[in-house]
């Protein structure tokens, strides 16, 4: 499900301002909900909105640096790789997303 390859669709999902800095929003897709994160530096990242631990909604976690802490059991997930940090093991599928002219563009496989 990793969307880094075989990109077919690039979709404008809204304005960068629609996401609070250090916040996240979700996008409903046929793959399930995808969480779009915005860091303090206005980078955006997209992960499936499910923690690899107990499927907690990562979009509801606290964003810090380029990580998010899951609201259910405090797993820390890297926004860049989707990998659980520290001693926890697990990985959340990631999707390609970028910002152009203030618009957030999500690529779906």
């Amino acid at each position, binding site marked *: 499900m990793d969307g880094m390859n075989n990109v077919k669709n690039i979709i404008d999902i809204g304005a960068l301002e629609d996401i609070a800095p250090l*916040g996240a929003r979700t996008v409903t*897709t046929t793959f399930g*909900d995808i969480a779009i994160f915005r860091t303090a530096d206005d980078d955006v990242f997209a992960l499936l909105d499910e923690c690899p631990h107990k499927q907690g*909604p990562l979009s509801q976690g606290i964003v*810090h*640096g380029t990580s998010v802490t899951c609201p259910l059991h405090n797993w820390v997930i890297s926004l860049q790789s989707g990998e659980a940090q520290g*001693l926890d093991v697990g990985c959340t599928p990631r999707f390609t997303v970028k910002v152009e002219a203030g618009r*957030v563009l999500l690529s779906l496989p």
Partner: protein
Amino acid sequence: MNMTVSPRKKLIVIGNGMAGMRTVEEILLRAPGMFDITVFGAEPQPNYDRIMLSPLLAGEKSFEQIVLNSYEWYDANGIDLIAGEHVDWIDREHKTVRGAKGTQRSYDILLLATGSNPFTLPLPGVNRPGVMTFRSAADVEEMLGIAAPGKKAVVIGGGLLGLEAAHGLNLRGMEVSVVHLMPTLMERQLDASAAHLLEQKLSLRGMNIHTSANTECFLGEDADSSVNAVLLKDGTCIEADLVVMAVGIRPNAGLARAVGLACERGVVVDDYMRTSDPAIYAIGECVEHNKQCYGLVAPIWDMAKVAADHITGMAQTSFTPVTTGTRLKVSGIEMFSAGDFLGGQGAEDVVFRDAARGIYKRLVLRDEKLVGVVCFGDARDAGWYFQLLKDQKKLGTLRETMIFGQAPSLTDPAEAIACLPDGAEICGCNGVTKGTICTAIAEHGLKSVDDVRTRTKASASCGSCTNLVEGLLKLSIGTEFGAATVKSMCKCTIHGHDEVRRHIKDDSLKTIPAVMQALEWRTPNGCASCRPALNFYLLAAWPGDYVDDAQSRFVNERMHANIQKDGTYSVIPRMWGGTTTAGELRAIADVVDKFNIPTVKITGGQRVDMLGVRKEDLRAVWQDLNAAGLVSGHGYGKALRTVKTCVGSEWCRFGTQDSTSMGIALEKATWGSWHPHKVKLAVSGCPRNCAEATIKDFGVVATEAGWDLHIGGNGGIKVRATDLLCKVTTDADVMEYACAFLQLYRMEARYLERTAPWIERVGLKYVQEKIVDNSELRKSLCADFLYAQTFAQTDPWAEESACNTRGKKYDAMAELV
């Protein structure tokens, strides 16, 4: 490859557990740089505290918190750690060892610290998935993979380890049964009376205890499928999604035996911890010394010292086993036993029971000396009894009063610590005395608990003596302690909570970035631990001034509802003093129907909880509730939660005051206030206390003469009854004291510290001095609280429903289906 020839001798340690690494630490302490050290560990992690597996299972600790030696420690000490590879051969002639993955190393001195293996019952079905032992972090992980609320666990073995496992699984919400072969639980540590109390206490927590129970087999659907039940010899069948065997350990001496070292049950060692091969030492649970094997940590630490003395050649010490005491690490159950607690012929018993408080103490005396002790329900004096037991002095006049504890008149913990003799043991795990700690503090200028830990090992294992160590620091260095010592808030900063709060006020820091800049945060924007704390501290320090940062709020406080495990939310409207009306109930019923809310539940705080509300529906649900006059109950926040009341003198034939009206008035005054943690109030109309005010943060109990005010109660994992703050006569007094108390707590407690541990930390006397003795301060605290309330008392539900920008977060950004 390094071509320089190392002049250093080569030490190989087989086993990366507590015993092995403690010996390495002792060696480094005596002769740093004497050896090139290589450590083989079968487990893939760094060395962790096996004693803390129970709190790990219970969710009270994370794995990181129980790591004893981090990878950095191995690096810093030049130790080559080969983790995840067990050693399968020792060539004693050529002095080499070989790992299972082919790693080969030579040694001058070899140390075996291979520990023990859990004993597995050889019964039919023992290999089914779901049947496991409780010995390693991997075991805990496997259990947690199965554990879930409502699922069923059976623990075989009602000894120390089994009950700790049962407790952990119980806290994870599982239905737990304990199957124990003997007629009473923990028969190696408890006499029948104490075991009976323990059984009662565990049953009250919902565990099913089967004693004198013999396991027949483990059942499943078919031959290879997971376990689904445990069948006992008497025909009883207990359903099980998970079976944990904790029926004992046996020394892991397989490798030693295979290479021809002398072995009995364990690897045989002499008083110097040497095996039958003079180049090979052994230590810990794998050894047998004088026909005795060891499983508790204290004697093993002694072994580590002796082994280090001989391996480095620094001293000629011998291992002599000392009496050890046992504590059960089950939160809320105090238990201690040591020595010959069963007594018998020629022994004399002194017994104390307090049925109402569930306390049982038994001291066993022989020749006027203390030889055994069992404490259940109250183990405060355990350390003192243990000292008397080890001293083996004639008791004399102590005999008359000792059952009541060391000093029945000393209620102040600081004084009690001051009264301990220098020889008194503070840390039972590591055998560290008060004298050793105080000397270390003085000689090395130690300032913090961490300093003491590094220098003396006190409180470095199970940590239950941390309070005593803190007390000794206070005693030794006085006020310097509070300032220089406290633990940092999190890894983002070197500063402790109190220091950060002081800076916020003194340096007029008014935003999170300003705090992080001024106090040199190490991370760009903090973490999920420090940001919510900073947000609260700023909110409390600058009412009306600070703009709340939603992104630094935990999800529940950002969404104004309580997140559930499936990502839906629960919604609890406020019911003032637990009262409601037909109109409110009708509105709730309509909301439940309209939004298909699956579960409606009455909470412990006398309110209605609607569970399973979808994030997208939250704002509409609130709008409908608001229309009926219902507002947010803050059941999701570190905030004022409920004010529980009884019906009081309005209806009750025993009521002495109108507790309901008092409760409503208190809730109207205090709702909306943010706190370091959740805060619960209650008002009872007479001393029968039907509102359970004595386990609340602030409890009010009516008397004929007025009101008793209680503080610092808690009904959670660790039950704590309140302390009486004072008695007052008028309703206005109740209000003033309540607001002043809440303000003091908001301004001084650390984030996530409930009133109970806060009061235990600062002392009741401290709070009384500020709230009761100093009326001027009380009035000003009360005024500060009411001022802050003018900004806090807005219903977040109404605000969020009305605001379109804030409302965005409840909806998807885009829908692509």
